[in-house]
């Protein structure tokens, strides 16, 4: 487990562009970001400002075009596919707007999935997490049988079950109504804090952003 | 088996088109190896009642003008054709190169019933024996009755799907030879046949028709003819009359149509004496229609001006080789009745 002050994410001058029909569009244009252990940061910005892209880069799901990006000691500019997959598997938890649960697995299996992949499965912890997330009665169900709020709670549980040092959340409440979203977000933040996990939360909700330790704004491809 | 093929092979040619090239029914084609009519060969009976296998074609042709107990006019036809595919060959068995064809018909004023048969020579299905005379194919027969001599007394039987008849014919005069002692010239190129007739039959018998049986009586005429090439290649058909005149005379008149019609005939008196007729002796003029079912037949030298009218204009023989053959009524300078045969016309 990381010490509280170690640098978990270190990004310097990251750029990322996507080819589209109309030519190349630069989404990130020299982003600098540094995160310490246990810190929670909200990334806000307009639609299409590149919030999700930044998150995907930090998660090792995609590779920056230029700049330096080190996450939990792994240089993501140079890491091979296999190494990036290992980083995701072992040390990062992700929560998506679409929940993105594995439809063929039950709630229980989804909750434990990544922890087991990472080889850090602790049934007691999953049970406690499920209780904390209010999922204890739903463990045998399949994702399709759950409401959106319930699915997102499973996704949060999945991200936290392996006690990763870093959790990345991309608009986790974006598909939920306000009340549910607030409840889910509060739950996530409290769990993250309990575990001392570093959190990057992409959101356009200022209310949600205010709950984090720090807030950065992405605009014109740069953080402010 | 294709009837057309059989008939081409039988040399009775199926189509007027074919007839135009090789004479009617292929009778104008080559004769290599077959016997040819010989003017020096006299007729001899009963031998010549029988078949002449070395000649290519031969027929036994009986036509009867009948009157029924119901007062109506009827006609009956019984014909057997022999065709040799080869002048030589086996005399018996399936490989015998002789093929037989027969036509039978009954004509009423409003109907014309036709039947046709084919048979192979050499196996007994069809044939002719000279003495005692018998000609047959299947169950059709034309033969001497009750041990009668030659052609003097004949029993005639035939049947088709919708008719049958059984007649007895008794000759009241002698057989007569046409042309020069039975050597009958048929064209300007000298094509000829051996040809004799027995025109003096008195007939009685019974017709079985779809509406029932009719007892009939009347007159009949038997033609016997054999040859190997009776027609010139350009000759396309013929018109042939066999008339019983009320004064007891018989008239055979015929023309073979070609570039120039070739006309011949015989006027036979009641005792069987024959006066051969040639082109200039006979004037045949067709009436309307194709084939023309009314004619005028004039013998200027005899002062005879005859009109000939079909009893039933629709007397086409719907056989493999179609032609027209039916009873006629005779008017004009003397009354009478007879038979008309027309070949080589387009028929429906």
């Amino acid at each position, binding site marked *: 487990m990381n010490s509280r002050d170690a640098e978990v994410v270190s990004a310097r001058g990251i750029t990322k562009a*996507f080819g589209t029909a109309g030519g190349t569009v630069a989404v990130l244009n020299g982003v600098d970001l540094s995160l310490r252990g246990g810190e929670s940061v909200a990334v806000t910005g307009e639609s299409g400002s590149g919030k*999700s892209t930044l998150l*995907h880069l930090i*998660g090792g*799901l*995609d*590779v920056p075009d230029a700049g330096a990006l080190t996450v939990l000691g792994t240089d993501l500019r140079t890491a091979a*596919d296999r190494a990036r*997959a*290992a*980083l*995701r*598997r*072992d040390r990062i938890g*992700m929560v*998506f*707007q*679409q929940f*993105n649960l*594995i*439809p*063929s*697995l039950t709630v229980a*299996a989804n909750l434990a*999935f*990544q922890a*087991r*992949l*990472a080889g850090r*499965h602790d049934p007691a912890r999953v049970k406690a997490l499920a209780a904390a997330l209010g999922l204890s009665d739903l463990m045998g169900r*399949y994702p*399709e*049988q759950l409401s959106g709020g319930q699915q997102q709670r499973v996704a949060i549980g999945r991200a936290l079950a392996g006690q990763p040092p870093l959790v990345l959340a991309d608009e986790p409440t974006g598909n939920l109504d306000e009340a549910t979203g607030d409840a889910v977000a509060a739950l996530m933040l409290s769990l993250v804090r309990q575990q001392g996990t570093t959190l990057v939360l992409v959101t356009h909700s200022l209310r949600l952003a205010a709950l984090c330790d720090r807030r950065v704004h992405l605009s014109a491809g740069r953080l402010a | *088996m*294709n*009837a*057309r*093929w*059989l008939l*081409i*092979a039988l040399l009775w040619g199926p189509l007027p088109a074919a007839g135009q090239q090789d004479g009617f029914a292929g009778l104008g084609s080559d004769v290599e190896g077959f016997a040819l009519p010989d003017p020096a060969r006299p007729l001899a009976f009963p031998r010549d009642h029988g078949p002449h296998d070395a000649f290519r074609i031969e027929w036994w042709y009986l036509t009867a003008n009948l009157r029924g107990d119901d007062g109506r006019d009827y006609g009956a036809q019984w014909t057997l054709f022999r065709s040799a*595919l*080869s002048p030589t060959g086996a005399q018996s*068995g*399936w*490989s015998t*190169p002789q*093929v*037989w064809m027969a036509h039978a018909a009954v004509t009423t004023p409003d109907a014309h019933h036709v039947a*046709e048969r*084919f048979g*192979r020579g050499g*196996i*007994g*299905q069809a044939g002719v024996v000279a003495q005692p005379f018998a000609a047959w194919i*299947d*169950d059709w027969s034309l033969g001497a009755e009750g041990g009668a001599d030659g052609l003097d007394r004949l029993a005639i039987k035939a049947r*088709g799907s919708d008719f*049958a008849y059984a007649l007895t014919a008794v000759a009241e005069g002698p057989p007569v030879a046409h042309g020069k002692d039975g050597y009958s010239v048929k064209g300007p190129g000298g094509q000829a046949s051996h040809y004799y007739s027995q025109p003096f039959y008195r007939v009685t018998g019974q017709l079985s028709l779809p509406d029932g049986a009719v007892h009939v009586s009347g007159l009949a005429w038997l033609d016997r003819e054999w040859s190997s090439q009776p027609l010139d290649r350009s000759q396309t058909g013929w018109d042939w009359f066999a008339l019983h005149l009320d004064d007891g005379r018989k008239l055979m008149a015929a023309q073979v149509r070609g570039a120039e019609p070739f006309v011949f005939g015989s006027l036979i008196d009641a005792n069987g004496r024959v006066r051969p007729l040639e082109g200039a002796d006979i004037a045949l003029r067709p009436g309307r229609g194709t084939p023309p079912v009314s004619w005028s037949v004039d013998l200027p030298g005899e002062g005879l001006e005859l009109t000939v009218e079909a009893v039933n204009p629709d007397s086409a023989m719907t056989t*493999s080789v179609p032609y027209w053959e039916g009873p006629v009524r005779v008017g004009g300078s003397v009354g009478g009745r007879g038979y008309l045969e027309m070949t080589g016309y387009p028929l429906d």
Partner: protein
Amino acid sequence: MTRRARLVLSALLSHWRRRPWQLVMLLAGIMLATALWSGVQAVNAEARASYARAADQLGTGALERLEPRPGTELTTADHVALRRAGWLVSPVVEGRLRAGEGRVAVLGIEPATRTTLGTAQGAAVPSGDLLAFITPPGQGHADQATAAALAGVDLGGLTIVPGTDVPPNTLVVDVGIAQRLLARGDRLSALVLAPDQPAGLPPVEGIVPQAVRAQPQGRADPAALTASFHLNLTAFALLSFIVGLFITQSAVGLAFEQRRQVVRTLRALGVPLAEVLGVLAAELALLALIAGTAGVVLGWAVAAALMPGVAATLSGLYGTDVSGGLALRPGWVLSGLAMALAGAGVAGARGLVRTARMPLLAAGQGRPWALAAARGLRGQALAAVALMAALPLCLAAGGLVGGFAAMACGLLAAALLLPVVLDAVLRALAARVRGVLTQWFVADTRQQLSGLSLALMALMLALAANIGVGTMVGSFRTTFTGWLDQRLVAELYVNARTEDEAAAIRDWLAPQVDAILPIWSAEASLRGQPGRIFGVVDHPTYRDHWPILSAQPGAWDAVAQGTGVLVNEQLYRRARLALGDSLDLPGGALPVAGVYSDYGNPSPQAILGMDSFTRRFPDAPRLNHAVRVPSDRAPALADALRVRFALPDSAVSNQAEVKALSLRIFERTFAVTAALNVLTLGVAGIALLTGLLTLASMRLPQLAPVWAAGLTRRRLARLELARTLVLAGATAVYAVPVGLGLAWMLLVVVNVEAFGWRLPMRISADLIVRLGLAALATALAAGALPALRLARITPAQLLRVFADER
């Protein structure tokens, strides 16, 4: 089409531009379904036309015939007697001549009387020379292939005129020439009766008392004999059609599913539902017509490729003559297109109905897949149970159709049960497996099952058909080879041309060989069927080797003494004889002393002792002999025989040659079955490929989270391929018992009905292993492309899953 409809259509059609693979699959499905169906239909139609042509031309189809009673004969004199009595009859002489490897039918006709049979008699012989036709050495008419086959055969100088309107594999000659060629003396096979006879004829019985009237349907009708074979082909075609529909169904279903959003948008923009449905239906019809046309063309090619094989099969199994060529029939083209439209309609109906019922606004999530799948599986299981219950009923109904219906029930039930069984196995596995990835693999495989079940059912059906038919053919081959060994014991077989020559050969051979065994036979009616009776001498060759299936004690003694008869299995089963039953034979009935197997021969057969045979058939030609001689001397003796008697090569054959020839004919007979097997398996492979490709795009949302959770794309691709292989492997395992069940039905039910013989079943492990590998290869071929695409997918495509609305 209105401007708005065009607009709607272009909006809907744009879908295909984005998913060309789906379009390819949809078209391929309809095309393949139509192709195999219409191909087989073309083959069937051609064969039926051949039978009809044969029946028309030979006068053996529609017309009644007079045939001699057993032990009596009809001669030319009988023909003449009937004609002279007024009966319109025409004689025929029928028989077969050996020509190389095959036998050519000889038909002797009589052209003169044949014309009186009525117009139904089509042109059997093109125009020709009647003189040459009827006078020796004669003229024969045959089609090109037959003329070629007869090229080396000694026909006594007969010239052959090739023609197109002669029935296949038939030499048409004059009746007299046929009597010579077939050494029939003056005998006729039958007298064909004209349908319309004059009224008032004397009864036939009084003229030819030895003749019996044979109704057209009473005699061996090729159409009836071969019905089983055509039913077989049709069943294969239907199977292929269904497999093709599986492909279409999955493509169409997906296309409708994926265009729900477009449809919703269109309707929200004010396009009436009816118009949307109309355009969708028109689009489907158009695609069906395009694919159907291609399918008909392809089907024509399939038919043209199959036809020679079919002709060989029909000739080998049934002795039926069918031409190897193919004629285009408009009805066939139309029926192919109709099948394409109907198939597309069936495949698209569900999509149309669901589109029609779809609410205008998106309503929450769909039904939970697990529940829906479970419900679907329960329905399939119930249907399968119902089909299984119907199976014994079909069997009880009996007959060929019953047998095939039972097979259809069994196969369909097995297909329906496949997903149920696989699901149960996977569920059981899921509870047992440990590793997280394994668990996911099993769970995900189970979920994939609903999407792939149609393709897997198709694969299962193809495999089962392959195993079933392969086992049947293999059993047949094993039995047939063994039977040949038993039956072909003599070292040499000699066919003389005349009885004098045969006698001379016997005299010449007698001092230098161990035994000369006459193989003399005569045609006879056996229990109302045309068959053949053989005479054999009492010799160990028969006693020790003849393939007896069951016999009374001392059966060979009874045969030798003329107090018993042996019958072949066909006669035994068809006539439902039992050992000891009395069998009517020309010259008096005899009890059945034993049954022997007689494969490859459709007709009934019986064996008498030679004394008994010659007494009953004094005129049977005595031409053929088997010669026992030490086998090392056989080749030299064969050569010596040929030289001494100037015999053609074909007149003397040794055992090995005859065996090789028989086996070659056997293999050719089943060539068409093998071809159809390969085709069916190929179509199943395409079904699997299309199923996987269509699923691939739906798979991304399911795979992306796993990728995000730390699996490389390469690994995911490997797992996907493994999944396909596991499913195919499981399907193959499942197909084994189904295929063996099918083989059992073919051997025990269908063969007995169709051919009259029952074969012991030989299970070939080799065949099963080979087909298992074929299944895996099919799955590998089908799974490779989707897996490769997954391995090469860009992160951006996967990331879109996390952002896109589903």
